[in-house]
């Protein structure tokens, strides 16, 4: 797959658009398909594994957007920690093998209706605002350097950073307090 992308990259004189578009297409198809399966499958663990695919695709999207540090963080935190935690949670509660018929709410039309409505509204507004207008083009963007990210975290965004660190501590303590057995 990536080889073909690379092929296109050379064929089009290293123009970025085509290979990136192809890569994006493949990634988004995988992501959307996995996401759909994730919310419809009858097996909790399968659902978590489909989430894994979605998360990995999102990491690929980050790389496509030049945000490599975010991509690595996505893999490290989401796949390495959050997903494992979720799998833990599944296995500690209801790791039933095989399908589980009552995973979904009976009246799923409400959810379907709300999300379709939401989708229509969002798509409309996005298309209206950006569409295929010229100013919405991403051309010749540079990958964002890790050093810049670090610098801006520790200067411009130092206050949110500290807030997040306090939040993590609070969540840690909170999780322990909530889940401990006594």
């Amino acid at each position, binding site marked *: 797959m990536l080889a073909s992308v690379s092929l296109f990259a050379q064929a089009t004189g290293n123009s*970025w658009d085509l290979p990136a578009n192809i890569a*994006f297409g493949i990634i988004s198809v995988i992501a959307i398909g996995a996401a759909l399966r994730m919310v419809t499958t009858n097996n909790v663990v399968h659902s978590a594994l489909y989430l894994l695919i979605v998360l990995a695709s999102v990491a690929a999207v980050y790389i496509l957007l030049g945000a490599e540090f975010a991509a690595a963080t996505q893999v490290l935190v989401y796949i390495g920690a*959050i997903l494992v*935690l*979720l799998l833990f*949670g599944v296995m500690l509660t209801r790791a039933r093998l095989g399908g589980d018929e009552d*995973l979904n709410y009976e009246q799923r039309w409400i959810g379907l209706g709300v999300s379709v409505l939401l*989708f229509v509204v969002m798509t409309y507004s996005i298309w209206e605002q950006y569409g295929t207008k010229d100013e919405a*083009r991403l051309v010749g963007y540079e990958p964002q350097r890790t050093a810049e990210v670090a610098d*801006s975290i520790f200067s411009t965004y130092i206050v949110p950073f500290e807030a997040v660190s306090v939040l993590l501590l609070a969540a840690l303590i909170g999780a322990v307090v909530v889940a401990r057995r006594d």
Partner: protein
Amino acid sequence: MYLTQYLLLAAVLFCIGVYGVLTRRNGVLVLMSIELILNAVNINMVAFGTYNADVGGQVFALFIIAVAAAEVGVGLAIVLLIYRNRRSIDVSDASLMRG
């Protein structure tokens, strides 16, 4: 390459996440759907960051990832607590706050 396509991908994932939140009975699955929503938001963040050539988007995506980690930690703790008390993590059963 258009910004639009990333935003649309994010919108699709977001809506799927909302559907998951609204239809799943299992608490852990609800949490997973919320993660999906957060990821959709993150794509937007990073896409706009790249669009504006500003690392701010990426930085906030990182913050959201950190917050998501905290959220999953606490959320799972709550789910485990519910499971321990009721032997079930069906969120439909947890309706003690009925008016």
